[in-house]
């Protein structure tokens, strides 16, 4: 039992400069948040408002008409097909390679010279502008062979690879070492430890990192400019002949002077945002699902 004698004990927050600092910092953070959200919301509203009216089944499936055609003619079917072909191929190439690279960096390479070189190169690759990646593929692949969806996939894959390596690397670093030791103490080999303990513990983060990389790649325009060109009809063979993609189509349509083409660009932009949004949702869902046992 405590009896207060004399002065009342003061447990209120201190007044003066400390409290003012707290207020200022809080206000600054809220303002910064709002400043970040304003352009995002503005972009989203504009794209939805201008794109929604053109979206229809026909728009999503029909062949691409000449730019002069009015908004209600044709669609962007070939671009959607091309995007799925190219991004799918890029994913098949970059994601497994990136995950294996990250496993090497984290579990096998240690602080050896090769691991350090790979880590450094991945960081350098992250900084390469996407248009340079497109020019790179143009000079080593397109000039020798031909424009194709595959060339575009190579360029996108080169962009995705360092992102996948780095995000997987971070996830593997988060796996606590005692888990590895627990597995080793039961007589597991390094490969077993990696396959049965490390990867399952990190799989949620790895998958969502990969999906974010895919979503980024799906929106890239520059690397595709010199590698796939654009076409107006679906090209079913991604390994031969020019192809097209949603971002390329947006680029072509938005720079044309015809209102019909510009409307189709808005529609394509909305389609792209929806695709990216679905991928993000999938990433969230998969992360939540795989972390079932983590608490």
């Amino acid at each position, binding site marked *: 039992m405590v009896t207060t004698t004399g002065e009342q004990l003061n447990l209120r927050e201190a007044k003066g400069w400390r409290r003012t600092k707290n207020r200022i910092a809080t206000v600054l953070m809220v303002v910064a948040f709002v400043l970040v959200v304003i352009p995002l919301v503005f972009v989203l509203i504009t794209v939805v408002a201008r794109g929604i009216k053109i979206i229809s089944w026909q728009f999503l499936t029909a062949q691409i008409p000449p730019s002069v055609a009015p908004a209600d003619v044709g669609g962007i079917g070939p671009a959607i097909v091309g995007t799925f072909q190219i991004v799918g191929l890029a994913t098949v190439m970059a994601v497994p390679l990136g995950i294996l690279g990250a496993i090497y960096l984290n579990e096998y390479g*240690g*602080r050896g010279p090769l691991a350090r070189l790979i880590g450094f190169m991945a960081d350098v690759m992250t900084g390469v502008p996407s248009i340079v990646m497109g020019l790179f593929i143009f000079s080593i692949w397109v000039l020798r062979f031909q424009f194709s969806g595959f060339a575009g996939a190579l360029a996108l894959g080169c962009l995705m690879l360092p992102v996948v390596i780095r995000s997987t690397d971070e996830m593997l670093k988060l796996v*606590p070492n*005692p*888990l*590895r*030791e*627990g*597995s*080793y*103490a*039961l*007589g*597991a*080999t390094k490969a*077993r430890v990696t396959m*049965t*303990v490390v990867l*399952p*513990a990190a799989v949620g983060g790895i998958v969502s990192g990969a999906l974010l990389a895919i979503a980024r790649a799906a929106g890239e325009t520059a690397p595709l400019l010199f590698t796939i060109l654009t076409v107006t009809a679906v090209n079913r063979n991604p390994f031969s002949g020019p192809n097209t993609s949603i971002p390329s189509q947006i680029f072509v349509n938005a720079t044309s002077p015809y209102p019909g083409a510009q409307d189709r660009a808005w529609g394509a932009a909305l389609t792209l945002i929806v695709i990216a949004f679905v991928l993000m949702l999938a990433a969230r869902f998969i992360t939540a699902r795989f972390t*079932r*046992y*983590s*608490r």
Partner: protein
Amino acid sequence: MEQPEQESVTSLQQPQTAAPPRAQPAPEPEAYSEPGSTVFDAEKVSCYYGSFRAVTDVSLSIYENEITAFIGPSGCGKTTVLRTLNRMNDLVASARVEGDVRYRGASLYGKDVSPIAVRRRIGMVFQKPNPFPKSIYDNVAYGPRINGEHNRKKLDEIVERSLRQAALWDEVKNRLKASGLGLSGGQAQRLCIARTLAVEPDVILMDEPCSALDPIATSAIEDLMRDIKSRYTIVIVTHNMQQATRVSDRTAFFSVLRNEESDTRTGVLVEYGRTEQIFHDPSDSRTEAYVTGQVG
């Protein structure tokens, strides 16, 4: 798996303890059966981390079906010595071991010895419970599975038997599919012990298994150690001297040797003998000071 078995050979070897011969107390409370064979014989073992010598010249023998306790102040190398016994130190890039550790007559650090095969026989329980982020069932079945056991019925049997041995079965039998991470600290540690028992090791090394647990969970684990002692050989590192007196048959006291010239600290084995002798009739003044609570 190509670990040679030479159990009969080792029984010929005399225990090499650091305790002087006179230290054996005459009256034994309940006549210990004289230890048959040694499981480990360490000879002049020194451990280095890089150029730092963490432990120097440890020689001791660990006996079959006994509980051996390692006690001593922090930084004296108890855990390091424990980890040399199943080559866990291999996982630390800079660690290096000198001297020889023989396990049932075979050198653990021989050229062709696979640390994987060693660890399948010599299990380890860690200071902090480290259940895998899997279900309780999968945690226990993990070891048998990596050793190639996939028969569902057999796995069920192994899981139940191991959980019963670890005195955890009754608490978890209705939620084997629940996450191993949802258990309390004491339960999680018993799960880790069950996981170790599931591979039926020969030796279980325990690195301060109770340091994160309350007295009730601690006593559950001590009971469990006494229960399984007849089938396993146990080596335990502990900071708790009462725990050493409660569970162990033999105690090794480690201490820190300071080198004033080079300003380095190295762990040494000061004294090794029967637990009663170490605690009631220590032959070294450092042991006496430590076990009577004058230092540390």
